[in-house]
């Protein structure tokens, strides 16, 4: 759309490439450094859990709402989760109003898989009456400033919001507004770590300018016990087997770091 913008970003992307070739990033970080993570919780009282994550200037807000619904017929004794990400038009001059585009759908599905497959929530425990009633946990994220690496930003705000979430009180399987029965139980804390290939280098936690220069993206959801629960390659470029090997090792390390920061920020009482 905005062609002047396009030209500016193209110029910046050339600078990024030149700098990264020399092992340096425009903002002075090392290739495998994250920007500063900051988490705020309780950002919405109407949510059952909520958090705002900052990765440098990137910001997303996640709210969790638990509702009572009918279980799926093929899993009558389980509840479920629903993960959504919206790229608000106020977050970037390139985002538009309207139904979610491909970019937002991929983003939300990768965040979803990381959480779902790591069995962060025990779906059996979300059952209320088999075949009749269960909890559905809606985890909805809104990107409010796009300064790169939305995958990790949304993963972090989603996890923080889940850690912040209280279970609404029920009476005869109906929600009693404003009353709660304790915190939502989380089995694992999966965290996305997203890599970018820029030139021949691998970097983490890309800025907006770096994403203009990257050829491919790779996300790994890791959790406790050196396991991972989701992989996703994106972009027109490629990775070699040894590059992915390298990324997996880094992801375990970064995952542990981010997880301990998350616990510090979001683990407080509510």
């Amino acid at each position, binding site marked *: *759309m*905005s062609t002047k913008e396009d030209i500016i970003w193209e110029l910046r992307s050339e600078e990024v490439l030149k700098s990264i070739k020399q092992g340096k990033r425009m903002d002075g970080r090392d290739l495998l450094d994250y920007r500063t993570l900051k988490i705020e919780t309780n*950002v*919405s*009282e*109407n*949510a*059952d859990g*909520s958090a705002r994550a900052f990765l440098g*200037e990137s*910001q997303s*807000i996640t*709210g*969790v*709402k638990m*509702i009572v619904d009918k279980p799926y017929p093929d899993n009558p004794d389980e509840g479920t989760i629903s993960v*959504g990400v*919206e790229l*608000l*038009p*106020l*977050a*970037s*001059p390139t985002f538009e*109003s309207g*139904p979610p585009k491909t970019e937002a759908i991929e983003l939300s599905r990768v965040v979803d898989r990381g959480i779902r497959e790591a069995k962060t929530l025990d779906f059996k425990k979300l059952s209320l009456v088999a075949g009749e009633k269960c909890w559905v946990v*809606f985890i*909805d994220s*809104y990107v*409010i*400033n*796009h*300064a790169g690496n939305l995958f990790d930003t949304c993963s972090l705000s989603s996890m923080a919001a889940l850690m912040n979430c209280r279970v609404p009180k029920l009476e005869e399987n109906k929600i009693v*507004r404003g009353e709660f029965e304790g915190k939502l139980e989380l089995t694992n804390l999966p965290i996305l770590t997203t890599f970018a290939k820029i030139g021949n280098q691998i970097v983490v936690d890309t800025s907006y300018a770096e994403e203009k220069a990257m050829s491919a993206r790779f996300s790994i959801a890791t959790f406790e016990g050196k396991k991972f629960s989701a992989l996703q390659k994106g972009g027109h470029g490629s990775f070699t087997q040894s590059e992915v090997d390298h990324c997996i090792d880094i992801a375990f390390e970064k995952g542990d770091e981010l997880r301990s920061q998350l616990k510090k920020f979001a683990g407080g009482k509510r």
Partner: protein
Amino acid sequence: MSNKNNEEPVYVNKQGLRLDGRKVDETRKIKITSGVLPRADGSCYLEWGQNKIIAGVYGPREALPAHTQDPTKANVNFVYRMASFSVPDRKNPKPGRRDIEISKVCGEAFEKTIFLEKFPNAVIDIYVEILDSNAGSRVAAITAASVALADAGIPMRDMVAAVAVGKAGGHILVDLNKDEEDASDAVDMPMAILPSTEEIVLLQMDGVITKDEWTKAIDLGLKACKKVYELQKNALKEKYIQAESSKENKVE
């Protein structure tokens, strides 16, 4: 607007205080911070009681698709949306008819104050997201949007300040909260003005009211809008003064 309990609460007690301790002409606590979104041309985070709102402004920029361009002036595109978790029952993310109507009337509230004629074929996009809500989110949205517009350096004749007035339990009140809006006789009247001239640029009302009650309500509303205006100016003070002087050089 109906009250589920059989007994109506006392909306204003003998001391003249409301359910949450406010006086009849008192707004909830309002906190305004401008310039919170680095990518946006202007932005504002606002808390108004439980309401939490983020506003971002882009523009003036080329209106697209081309057939939406007006060669005589810029368009205002106001988009009011609620986060799914911002209400007691989860909201479907798809914008509803209420969102669309609110976006329309809020956008119209800004057309008179922005120097639109300076930017032919352009659009000024105002995006407001409600993160948490408890009655009065549209007037909070306008108040935040006005600060975001100023933060973006968009040339304006005046700010737009907004408040809702209304009725509960027979009392005319400023800035009703949800409990008050649940009164069986509740009236909700959102309004927005240009503070320096008191021109009314947004006025809606639902509920049943008489002329006398209306007069009382509009008087309280005008006064409350001016208090909101003071808070907007305070939030912008340093930044705004700088922006204004640079704008004068640019646009005159």
